[in-house]
């Protein structure tokens, strides 16, 4: 089964995102900040990471830079999911190694489309 880590300090967002990923046959883990996410990735590297930007302790940007330097940390597809919606922020995120970028507010269609963009096609779920 495909695995996904949802990293967001909002429990509400984590819950909404979890539902979307679970219907796409992902096994979902959660982390409420970058530091906890990094620990989780150290244990098991997920296939995909949905990543908020602004979080206490370690933000999404610092997490991503640290992740990409970790052994095996180049593997997960990272989708930023944030209210940071200006071009500069998007460019920084991509430069730091993000695969896709979701601007909040988001809905199921957007998440599905973005996952397809990074290679998780809906058809593959049946397998």
């Amino acid at each position: 089964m495909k695995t996904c880590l949802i990293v967001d300090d909002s429990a509400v967002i984590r819950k909404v995102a979890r539902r979307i990923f679970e219907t796409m046959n992902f096994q979902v883990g959660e982390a409420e900040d970058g530091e906890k996410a990094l620990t989780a990735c150290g244990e098991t590297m997920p296939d995909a990471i949905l990543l908020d930007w602004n979080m206490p302790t370690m933000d999404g940007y610092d997490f991503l830079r640290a992740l990409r330097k970790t052994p095996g940390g180049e593997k997960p597809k990272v989708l930023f999911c944030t209210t940071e919606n200006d071009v500069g922020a998007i460019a920084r995120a991509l430069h730091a190694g993000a695969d896709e970028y979701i601007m909040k507010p988001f809905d199921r269609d957007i998440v599905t489309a973005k996952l397809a963009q990074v290679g998780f096609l809906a058809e593959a779920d049946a397998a």
Partner: protein
Amino acid sequence: MTDIEFDFLRSYLKTRSGLALSAEKRYLVESRLGPVCRRFNLADLGALATALKSGRDTAMERAVVEAMTTNETFFFRDRVPFDLFRDVLLPEAMARRASQRRLRIWCAAASTGQEPYSLAMMLNDAAPRLAGWSVDLVATDLSTEVLEKAKAGLYSHFEVQRGLPVQALIKHFEQVGEQWRISAPLRQMVDYRPLNLLHPFDALGSFDIIYCRNVLIYFDAPTKGDVLGRLSASLAPDGALLLGAAETVIGLTDRLVPSPQHRGLYNQAGGAAARAPAARPLPAAPILPAAGIPPLRRVVGL
């Protein structure tokens, strides 16, 4: 709404836009035309039917037809028809037109512009190979309202996130407040014009590639056959026609056949697509505009 009024509206829409509504689509007529009634200060759909019968208000006629069109679309919708354009149709058409260095592409149900702009982005990516070429990218739709939006090229946060890779967003769009506007060079590549597919469109000339996706599904079989026959007449002998996933030519026209390799792709029956590219003289695309139709804009040397 009485049955008589509903039947009148059905036949009215069938004549004006080809929209074939079954008896179960009563709810759709009620939900879409209710706002039109309010806009024109009419009490109900019965009053609207009466007003349409008098046939004096062209603004009202247009509002009724446009309110019943479905304009849902997104960038790179269904993906496969666009991968096909980038990987197969464009390279093959460029090989066949290497001496003329001219390509003509038509989006026949352009809606709010996502389909033609998706093609424009891919043409832009191919720009180094298209240096010195002249490319026409014509985009038509029945609804002038959606064409205005298409021309403006301004999309919501939700619209730019469905189907559009973020790299393409960064590359081709600028942020305008809460919205995103596609870049001026891409906007200028697309020649938008209102067109009802029920009316003659031969004045647009002959095309190498036609995208006519998700519009035939709203027509009845004779109308589908008629439109497909005329699309075939507007398609080069070696041209490519792309239809929506739920659409086909089978049983509707003998002039087009499905491609054996690619789903959603259709070629001229007994046409030149399968033959050797160099073996056949190329038809001159008519470029002289018919009376009353402004000349098509051409993008030269991308």
